[in-house]
C-alpha cells in the first residue's frame, strides 16, 4: 500500500535503463523519415505510443507471430525486463514533449 502506480497508468519498467536498451532502436526509429525498404514505408514513430501495445508488438516479433526480419532479429535478443524498460522509455518521450 506504499507505492501505488499513478491512476490510469499501467506503466512499468525503468525508462532510464530502457534508454540504454533503446540505443540500437534509434538506428532506425530515431532518424526522422527513415525508410524501410521492400516495401518502402517510413519506420513508425514510437515516442508516446501506448506501452501495452509496444509490449505486445515486441513479444509478437520475438515469438514470430508478427513478421519483419529486422524486428524479429532485434526482439529475439530482448528479455521480458528489456521489453518493459525499453517500452517505458518510449512512453516517457511523449510525456516529456506534450
Amino acid at each position: 500500500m506504499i507505492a501505488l502506480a499513478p491512476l490510469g497508468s499501467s506503466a512499468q519498467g525503468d525508462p532510464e535503463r530502457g534508454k540504454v536498451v533503446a540505443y540500437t532502436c534509434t538506428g532506425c526509429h530515431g532518424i526522422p523519415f527513415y525508410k524501410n525498404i521492400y516495401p518502402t514505408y517510413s519506420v513508425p514513430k514510437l515516442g508516446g505510443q501506448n506501452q501495452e501495445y509496444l509490449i505486445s508488438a515486441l513479444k509478437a516479433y520475438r515469438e514470430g507471430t508478427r513478421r519483419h526480419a529486422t524486428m524479429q532479429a532485434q526482439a529475439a535478443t530482448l528479455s521480458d525486463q528489456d521489453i518493459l524498460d525499453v517500452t517505458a522509455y518510449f512512453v516517457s518521450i511523449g510525456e516529456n514533449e506534450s
Partner: protein
Amino acid sequence: MNRLTLLTGMLVTSIISLALGSPAHAAGGDYRRGLEKSQVCQSCHGRTGNESLQPSYPRLAGQHEDYLVHALESYRDGSRQNAVMAGFAGNLSDQDIADLAAWYSRQKGLQDLDVE
C-alpha cells in the same frame, strides 16, 4: 519559331502535371474523407487517434502516413495478423486506406525518438 513555342508549351505543361501528381495516387489521401470514413475506427482509436479504448490498442495520431497505409494493407492481405483488424481492414479499398491514413497522420500525437 511557332513550332518551338508549341514544343516549349507542351514541355511546360507536362512538367506542371508531373509536379501536381495524379489525384488517384495512394499517397494522395483526402483527410476530410478520412475523418468521415473513420467512424468505425474511432470506436477503438478515438477521433484523433490519441484516445485508445484499451491500452493494448496503438495510438495512431501523428503516425507516418505511409506506415499507416502499410499497416492497413498488411491487415487486409493477412500478412499482419489480428482478428479485430482483419475484419475491418478486409472491407477497405485502396482509397479508403489512403484517406484514413491521411486523417490520422495529420493529428498531433506520436513523437520521433530523440537521438543525442
